[in-house]
Every structure is written in C-alpha cells, then in structure tokens.
C-alpha cells in the first residue's frame, strides 16, 4: 500500500494530475503513446536496471550493448520506426542506459556532411548494423575550440589516399563514445593538408576494427579511457593513428572535395554546420537537463513528506521535513525551475522548427539568433539544472548520499552536460557576442531579432511596486528582469568601448570583460525564461486549478531569482531596499502555498518507479523498507575475503606481541 503520509498529500491536490501530465506531454494522445512505450520497455527483463547500482564498469558496458542489440529486435517486433511517434520516448524509457548513441551521431554526420553517393554507400550499412560507428572529434588537448585540433590528414596524389596521423600525444582522439570497445568505424576530424597547405578541419570516414574478429586495424591504437564519474555503460575511447590510409572518397564531401589532382573545391554554405550543433544542443536540454531535474525533484519531494524529523510543536508528532521553511526553500524553487525550463524548451523547439523551415527554403536569416539561443540556453539550463539536482541530493541528507537513492547517478550524469557539446562559459560568451552585436545594431536604429528588441528601449526608470502583492504581477517582475538584463548588457558594452577607446587592444578588452559578458548573457536568458513562463501561463488552455498553480510556480521562479540576485536589481535603484523586502516577503509567502501541491506537481511528471530507480522516490513511499531490502542485495554483503586475509590475523591478536 501507499505510505499514508504520501497518500494524504495526493488527496488534497488542487488540480487534476492527469490533466497536467497531458499538458506537459503536449496532449492526451502523446501521454498514451509514451506510457505504451514505457510499458513495453519496462516489462522486458533485458532492459531491467534493477542491479545497476551493484555493477562494475565491465558489467555496465556489457548490459548497455546487450540492450542496444535487443532494442533493434524489439523495435522491429513492435513496428516502431525512427520517424514514428514512439521513437522519442524510447530514450526516456531506457533512462539513457544504452549503447550505440554515437552510432546515431555517426549516421547523422554522414547524412548531413556526406555527398549523395557517400550517403547511399554508408547509411544502409549502418542501418543494418553491418558496421558500428562513432564520432571522433575531441582530442586529449582540444575540446570546444575545434580549430585547435591536431590530427592530420595528408593527401597522397600518387595513391589517391589520405594519410591520417596522430602527430603528438595531445592529438590523440579522446572521449568519443562507443569508440573504446564497440565501434568498427568512426568519423574522424583532422586538419586537411594538400600539397603542404593546410585547409582546416575536415571529417573522414575511417575503419578502426576488423569486421571479422573485431581486432584493431593496422596503424590503429584504440581503447577505453577508464573510469569516469558516470557513463560507465559507455566505452568512451581513445584513438591513435599511425600512417593510416583511407581512400579519397572517404572525406565527407557535401560541401567540399579534394579532386584527384589535389585541387581543393568548396561549395555551399558552411553555416549549415552550425545547424547540426544547434540541433544537438537543443535536444540535450530536454533529455539530459530537464528530465533529470524533474526526476530529482520527484525523489526529493516524495521523500520529504515521508521523512519525519524533529517537532514543530511540542507534543506533536514529528513533522514532515517538507513542512520546514528551509526545506521548502531548498526544493520548491527547483520544482518551479523544472516547469520554467519545460516551457522554455517548448519555446526553443518551436523556434527551431521555424528556423528549419526557413533553411529548407535556403533562408539562413534566423541562424544567428537560433545559434545564440541554443548556446546560451544550453549553458544556463544545464548549469541551473545541475545545481538543482545537487540541491535535491543534499536536501535528502544522509540517504541522498546512498546510490540507492538514485540521486548520485542523476547528478554525476547531468553535470557532464555542462561540458559536452560546448563548455558552458564559452557558450555564454558566444551568446554575449551576439548580444553585443544586436545592441550596436539596435542603437544604430537597425532591425534586430524580436527577442532582443528590448535592448533598444533601454530606459532608467523605477519599479512601480507599492506593496508585496504587486510583486505577484507578471508584467511587473518581467519588466524588472528586462531592465536588469538590459542594464548589464549595455554597461558591459560601455565598458568594452571605454577600454578600446583608452587604447587597449580589442581582444584584450574582450578578455578583460568576459566575466561581465558571461553574466550579461545569463541575465538575458534568465529574462527570456521568466518572460516565456509568464506568457505561457497567460495563454494556457487548461482548467482553472492548473492555471492557478502554474501562476504560483511562475511567480516563485521569478521572485526566487530576484531574491537570490538581489544586488543586480538593487544596483541602480530600479528596485529599492523597501521593495526588496516586499520581494522577500512575497517569495516566502509562496512557499507554503506551493508546498500543498508539491507532491501532485511531481506526480504529474509521471515517472515510473523503474525509471526513477530510487529507494527514496517510489510512488508508494515505502522508503525505509525498500532501502533495507535493496541494501541486502549488495555484493558487499557476501562474505568478504578481507576477514580471512586481514581482519582475522588482526583480531587474533598479533598486536599484543608488539
């Protein structure tokens, strides 16, 4: 049965959980399909994650490969296709615990960057798993800064081949997933040299393992890079190349080609490459950042109504820890952020769809904005969600530290998202560059994308709030965020200009302002998130109960941001000291209001127990029983050799002889 402390929380929900779930899924039909996929996957023992926390790296890897292979069969059996509506739910249902994700990137890069002939040759082979692909970009010495890659591909006219080399240790490919043990092929990025001239980084298809016995091909050194904080199921690999030859046709040549005589030809726009990165960044926001934070909130909030500790009133029963203001202040803003980011993700996906349609019509106008958006939001959301998951983990006290809570693995996984697909600081600076350009254009009266028109309107002004209730007005707080973002962006631009005018070189001036620039980019993204949340709530077609609670969450998200960065809003007096006290009061008042619906709000995320894989967060709230049962399955509870070998001699008194 359900723990009564959890059951009572559900009886008092102010809205229909089922309807909110449908809203989050984008309609009842989507919810139905998602649940069917989850059911199909979870009822199949091959996909079980039951013993995951007890497995070694080798076992995790093997399980991931087994699942990937089995998934192909399963999809075939159930008639799921990559273009079908089920596809996007499979990854969620597997909790990402599956191999061959890079195989997909391998295929995508060939489709995007390969000529029609290359696509026709390689894609069917990959589709049939006649080969397993990977994507080798990052090197030991270089990550986000791609121009710095050191692997070389020298064209040899006499044999019509490229000769691939790893000229020094820092040029070794390092990190690519599926490459350590599984992949037979990879797309490798290398500096192209023809006739001694360097043409920059280009992609090449390269076979690294035998299709017969999986042994390494001549000239190839490859293997696994060793244990990491997470992703133990993935064989992130290294790759060293010594005079490895690939035919001229293996350079991906949709946009450029080396002709048989060594002439280098380029056609089409390289801009489309940005589009690939943009796609990946946007897709990771929902899968790798928002979903984990929703899971972490589910676990921490359910546990916080089951856990009772200390007393609020003498003589009472011990209180649920969620009734403590400090616990609410830890968890509820994270819950609000999960919703805020869910809606910003909808917004980004819509923007992306629009841009995609434009690009099909060869219109690249929206690309800079989309690129700036995807960079900035990838950085802000992944950073915010990472710290949110960590807050949830620590809010569960000692039990959060147990792997069985599910929180450590959520955390160690999500934090990687701050680094891959572009290190966050660098991404924020890219967004900042876009904002600086837009500000310049806007000040000169030129047209700018709609999301940044506010930069032109920069006005001093004061916040009009008279009492704490005024701060529950979305227009009022959105305006405050807008003001703050505009101020940070324009003051950074002014600083940059001052430095340049005082004779500092442009690149030095830029470096001296990067701390401010990154802060300004973050402020912009925060403002857009608040604005979008408020607009979404405004337009929401949902029952009154859902409307109301979403409005509360939006208020909480916005006010928490002002409360935590008070200095930014106080700085030029836009918000006065007295008004800041009103913000604090309104913010703290919201906590007990949302507290009442906290459990229904996480139930609406609709994660199954198996996907949470947490002794603390299960739907039935039988926390302690489950912890105890799971702990007993631990391999450490088999008799340890440590006793016979070390403890026994110790206990049998070797010491007293000393």
């Amino acid at each position, binding site marked *: 049965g359900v723990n009564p402390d959890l059951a009572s929380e559900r009886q008092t929900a102010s809205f229909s959980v089922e309807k909110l779930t449908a809203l989050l899924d984008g309609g009842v039909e989507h919810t139905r399909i998602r649940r069917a996929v989850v059911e199909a996957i979870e009822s199949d023992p091959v996909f079980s994650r039951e013993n995951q926390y*007890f497995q070694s*790296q*080798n076992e995790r*890897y*093997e399980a991931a*490969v087994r699942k990937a*292979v089995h998934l192909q069969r399963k999809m075939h059996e159930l008639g799921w296709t990559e273009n079908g509506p089920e596809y996007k739910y499979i990854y969620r249902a597997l909790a990402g615990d599956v191999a061959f994700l890079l195989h997909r990137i391998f295929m995508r890069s060939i489709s995007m960057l390969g000529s029609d002939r290359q696509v026709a040759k390689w894609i069917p082979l990959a589709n049939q*798993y*006649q080969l397993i692909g990977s994507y080798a970009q990052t090197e030991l*010495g*270089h*990550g*986000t800064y791609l121009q*710095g890659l050191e692997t070389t591909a020298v064209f040899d006219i006499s044999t019509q081949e490229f000769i691939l080399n790893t000229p020094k*240790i820092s040029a070794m490919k390092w990190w690519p997933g599926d490459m*350590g043990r*599984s992949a037979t092929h990879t797309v490798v990025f290398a500096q192209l040299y023809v006739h001694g001239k360097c043409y920059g980084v280009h992609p090449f298809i390269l076979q690294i393992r035998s299709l017969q016995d999986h*042994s390494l091909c001549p000239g190839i050194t490859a*293997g*696994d*890079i*060793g*244990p990491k*904080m997470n992703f133990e199921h993935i064989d992130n690999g*290294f790759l060293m190349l010594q005079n490895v030859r690939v035919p001229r046709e293996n350079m991906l040549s949709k946009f450029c080609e080396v002709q048989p005589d060594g002439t280098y030809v380029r056609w089409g726009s390289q801009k489309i490459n940005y589009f690939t990165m943009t796609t990946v960044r946007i897709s990771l926001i929902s899968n790798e950042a928002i979903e984990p934070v929703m899971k972490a909130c589910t676990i921490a909030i359910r546990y916080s109504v089951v856990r009772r*500790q200390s007393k*609020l009133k003498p003589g009472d029963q011990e209180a649920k820890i969620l009734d*403590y203001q*400090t*616990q609410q202040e*830890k968890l509820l803003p994270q819950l609000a952020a999960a919703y805020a980011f869910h809606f910003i993700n909808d917004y980004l996906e819509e923007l992306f769809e629009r841009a995609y349609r434009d690009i099909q019509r060869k219109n690249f106008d929206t690309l800079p904005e989309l690129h700036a958006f995807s960079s900035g939001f990838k950085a802000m959301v992944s950073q915010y969600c990472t710290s949110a998951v960590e807050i949830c983990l*620590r809010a569960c*006290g000692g039990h959060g*530290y*147990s792997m069985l809570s599910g929180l*450590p693995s959520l955390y160690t996984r999500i934090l990687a998202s701050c680094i891959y697909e572009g290190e966050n600081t660098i991404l924020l600076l890219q967004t900042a560059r876009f904002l600086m350009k837009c500000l310049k254009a806007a000040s000169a009266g030129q047209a700018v994308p709609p999301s940044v028109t506010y930069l032109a309107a920069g006005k001093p002004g004061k916040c009009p709030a008279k009492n704490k209730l005024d701060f529950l007005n979305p227009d009022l707080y959105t305006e405050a965020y807008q003001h703050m973002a505009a101020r940070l962006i324009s003051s950074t631009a002014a600083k940059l200009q001052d430095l340049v005018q005082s004779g500092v070189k442009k*690149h030095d001036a830029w470096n001296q*302002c*990067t*701390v*401010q620039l990154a802060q300004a980019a973050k402020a912009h993204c925060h403002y857009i998130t608040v604005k979008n949340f408020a607009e979404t709530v405004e337009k929401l077609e949902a029952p009154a109960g859902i409307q109301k609670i979403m409005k509360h969450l939006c208020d909480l998200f916005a006010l928490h941001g002002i409360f935590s960065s*008070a*200095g930014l809003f*106080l*700085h030029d007096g836009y918000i006065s*000291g007295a008004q800041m006290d009103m913000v604090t009061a309104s913010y*703290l008042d919201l906590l007990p209001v949302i507290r009442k619906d906290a459990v229904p709000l996480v139930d609406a995320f609709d994660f199954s127990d198996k996907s949470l894989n947490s002794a603390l967060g299960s739907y039935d709230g039988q926390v*302690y029983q489950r912890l105890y049962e799971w*702990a*007993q399955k631990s*391999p450490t*509870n088999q008799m*340890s050799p*440590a006793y016979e*070998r070390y403890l026994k001699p*110790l*206990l*049998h*008194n070797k*010491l007293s002889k000393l």
Partner: protein
Amino acid sequence: AAMTTMNPDLRRERAAATFQPELLTNVLDGSAERTRRRKEIEALVINDPDFQHEDLNFLSRSQRYEQAVRKSALMVMKLREHGIANPDEILWFKSFIHRGRPEPLDLHLGMFLPTLLTQATPEQQDRFFMPAWNLEIIGTYAQTEMGHGTHLRGLETTATYDPATQEFILNSPTVTSIKWWPGGLGKTSNHAIVLAQLYTQGQCKGLHAFIVPIRQLGTHQPLPGITVGDIGPKFGYDEMDNGYLKMDNFRIPRENMLMKYAQVEPDGTYVKPVSDKLTYGTMVFIRSHIVGDAARSLSRACTIAIRYSAVRHQSELKPGEPEPQILDYQTQQYKLFPLLATAYAFHFVGAYIKQTYHRISGDINEGDLSELPELHALTAGLKAFTSWTANAGIEQCRMACGGHGYSRYSGIPDIYVTFTPSCTYEGENTVMMLQTARFLVKSYTQVTSGQQVTGMVSYLNDLSRQRIQPQHVSARTVTVRINDPASLVEAYKARAAWLVEAAAKNLQAELNHRKSKEDAWNRTSVDLVRASEAHCHYVTVKFFTAKLPEVGNAAVRAVLTELCLLYALYGISKNTGDFLQAGILTDAQVTQVNQRVKELLAVIRPNAVALVDSFDFHDLHLGSVLGRYDGNVYENLFEWAKKSPLNETEVHESFHKHLKPMQSKL
C-alpha cells in the same frame, strides 16, 4: 613511463613567483619544524613497500574495502613500531596512508576508543579498553538510524532493563529504528557502542550508550539476535563499510551500559548523570576538524585545477598567436582564484578554532566553561558555512577542468564524493546554521534588554545605540576603504549586524502574530540562516585579516594580503544585495569592488602556481593525473587509461556475445 622533466609551462610559472613557497608552507603547518616533521612522517609511508598498491580507480568496491582494511591493519602496527603518538602526527600518518580517504577503522579509533575513555567506568575500561587498543575488539559507534539523524531525541532503538537477569534487552522495534550508516559496522567491527532509549522500571530515561558485542570472536559470524551488514553502494566512501544493525531481543549484561555518568543499579534504580557540558567539547572538536577538512579538500582541488590550467592551452586570445594557457583567461581566473583565497581563509579559520578549543579545554579541566557556549554556537555555523562553500568550490574546480575533470583520473571526483557528506554528518548544515542563529538571536535579545555581550557577537552592542530609529534598520554608516582589509572587516560586521537584527525583528513580528514559538521560528528560518551565514562570513574575513600581521616574511605577507583582499571583495561582489540594501556600500562602490576583484585576479595570476605548491600535497596524496607536480599531463593520461578494466582484453567479450550475433542476423 612518465617523463621526468618538468613541463616547461610549470617551470616558468614557478620561476616567476614573487615569494618562496616553502615559507608559506611553514605558515600553513604552523612552523618550519612542523613542516619538517610532517614530511618525515610522509616519507615513512612513501618509502614503505607495504603501503603501495594499484590505482584504486580500477578496483571494485569490495576490492577497495579490502585494500583499506589491509592498510588499516598495517597502520595500527606501524604507528606503534615508529612510536608515533602525538595526535597531529597520527593524523598525518593516517591521512597519508589512506590518501585523504576514509578507512574502516576510523570509527574504532576516532569514536569507540575515545568514548570508552570518556564515558566508561574504570572497571569497564579494564574490561574493554586494552582489548580494543590491541584490536581484539574492533568497535564502532552506532547512533544514526534509518529514520533519524541529526535529531537525536527521535531515535527509536530501545534498551529495556530486566532486573531478573540483570541484563538489558536491546531491540530495533521498527524498520526506521535499524541502525544505519555507522562506519565499520557493515563488515569490520565485532562490537558497537549503541545509542538507545533506556527503559527501566517502566520509564523511559532517554538516550544512553551501551557496549554491544555483535559478532562472534573467532568466526566473525553475527551473534544470534543480531542482523548486520553493509548498506550498499554510495556516492563515495567506497572503502568504508557503512553498515546496518538490527537487534531482536538481544541481551547484554547490566555492566555493558557506559556508566561513568548515568547509572542503572542492579534493582533497576536509575541514577541521573551530573550535567556535563563535556559532550559540547567533543562536538566542537569534531566540527573544528571538519572546518580544517574543508580547507584541505578545497586546497587539493585548487592545486589540481590551477596546475592543469597552467598546462592546458586552448583557443586564442590574440589573433595569430599560439594558444594561451587557459589560466590566462579572465573567466578561468574568476572561477579559480576566489576559491584559492577561500582555501587559505578556511585554513586560518580552522587553525583558530583548533587553538581556541585547546585553550578552552585547558580551562574545562579547571572548570571554566564560560566560553564554551559561544564556541559551540560558532563552530556549528562555521562547520556549515565552510563545508557548503568548499563543497561547491570543489565542484567548480572540477568544472574548470572541462572534460578531463569529469574523468576519475582528474582526482577531483574522488575529493568531491569524499568531502560532500560533511554537509550532512556531525549535524546537518541547515540545522547547524539554525543553532548558530539561536545563539545570535539570544545575544541580540540580551543587547536589546540592555545587557552587553562579548566575544564574536560584540558588534551587536553597537546596535543598541540605534534603538531610537523607528522602522527598518539601516546599518550604521561605515566608510569602506576597499583596499584595506580592516575596513572590509567592518563592512562585513555591519552586514552581519543588519541581517541579525532583521531576522530577530521578523521573528518578533511572527511571534506577535502566532501562538506557537516553534511556528514563528520556522517561518523565520530562511532569514535566520542568512543571518548565520553573514555572521560566519564576517568571522572568516576577520580571522584571515588578523593572520596577516603575524606573517614575518614580507613577500609572503604581501601575497597573503592580496588573497585576503580578494576573499573579502569577492564575497561582497557575490552578495551586493545585502551591502546595497543595508546602505553599507553605494552603487558606485559596488562597481569599484567588482572592478577591483578583476584587477586582483591579474595581480594574483603570476603567483597562482606557487600558491598551490605551498599547500605541499605530495603527488601520491593528490591522486590526480591532471594535478601532477611535474605537469606531464597528457602522456600520463594515456598510461593511466591503458590500465582500465575495459581494456583487459584486446577484444571485449561483448563482441562475441552480442555484436557478432547481431551483425549476422540483421
């Protein structure tokens, strides 16, 4: 396999330092003599083949536990062999052997033995102490239960006295009452000191400690009535067998209750303890140790991240020039240098508390406990303040190492998972902050009723002069000079006073509206935590500043002064809201502070590597390929990776099991 020459970037960094790192190391150790002795003890471990073993990153949890047990057993013997008996020296030896990680005998040495010493009667000491000293008895300290941690009064384990047999009957009446988490309980110990609610003559007498045998001497099998085991995998602490313990009508003789203070007589009569503040002392001691640990863990992470940032080159600052060291980027400096300054700040705070503790515990023996309540209140908050900050700081260091930080070879993941539980154990941080707040509010109330307060909270006395001001408190105007640490101490003091007063007033307002004191307290707790944080922040800036004139060498003092300024100014720039709202700083000053922080980054940059070298962590202790002293990072990463378990065979068995069949079927 490793190259023996030093990476040229690091060599250049070291040559450019403006001070001698050894001199700063001596300041951190306390004296040149202590540095010498520490290194001597470290050498005992480094040169001892018995303490060598393969890289722990490649071992399973059971193997890591086994290694740790092996080393712990050796450690105990070798401590005696080498005649190391001074507590600091034991700690050095132990921490070096276990490379800063926990070990299965931690609770035996750190809790079981000391508890016997302080709470056992002479007769009990005769029975238990020597066997425990000689490790015939290995004990642990079983306090936390599945359902209760920091709130001790809620513990549910019972010990019911049976006068007929003169025994206590121990029971774990519910699932939540199962003892959970004690280190060394799962597999190592054969005894435990168990905290249980004592029942005698039908009455509950509260929590008391009992010595409970849990495993059969000789076979190590659990005794009948005892269910004991390991609680399973955790975020970290792989080498520790944190355990569970369930007792079903398990009987122990009356003499196994620790009876130096409270007693149960043979007929069941309960004799109350004389009140003892001594337990305060133990808590202060352990929490001060956590402050030191926060400093050490953050120092290790900074060492790794800063050395690596001097070796790593990426992207371009100036078009056409070679890729710069990433430490030359302002954003990278901004991530790391404030943490470096924080590590130093915490080091001095930790040293101060330890000193004060030793001074006061001298007094305890002479019966003067007057300073203990304040120290107790202060260390609770500082434990929380420093562990929260270090916890976040370690993560920031890891993040600053990009992708390589994520691999276990960086060493930072291990530092993090080992350190992060200190936010929870020995008092959950939020609860600790609220304890300090209780003391602050009490002091504030004393001041408002006309009494003077002393010690760290004496700044509250100044508030009384402003009592006439009707509505909101605005802090007294301080003229802040942003290049003068002493002036910044005043600014932090003003902020603390402002927040303590605001919290106390909000609490009063809540009390005026509500019936229950507890409810009012709960509704003010966010404000109260903020006040405690501000108080601890003030104390930290104050101790750091106070340390500066004690440093003899001018070059070392200069660089520490820069760090102290950075610590103080960075703290302001991260909390500008408080300083602006309290009217301590103007908008223009805040802009100056932000600017000055960035200037200081550039000032500290040339000394950054020397400043982490001064922490003097041996490579073996650091356990990081990225943070190696010689900076030969990439070649050693490759050497390390080759040892990965996935690389054991050229073709992984998964190929034959899964890949090959799939390829033939599709």
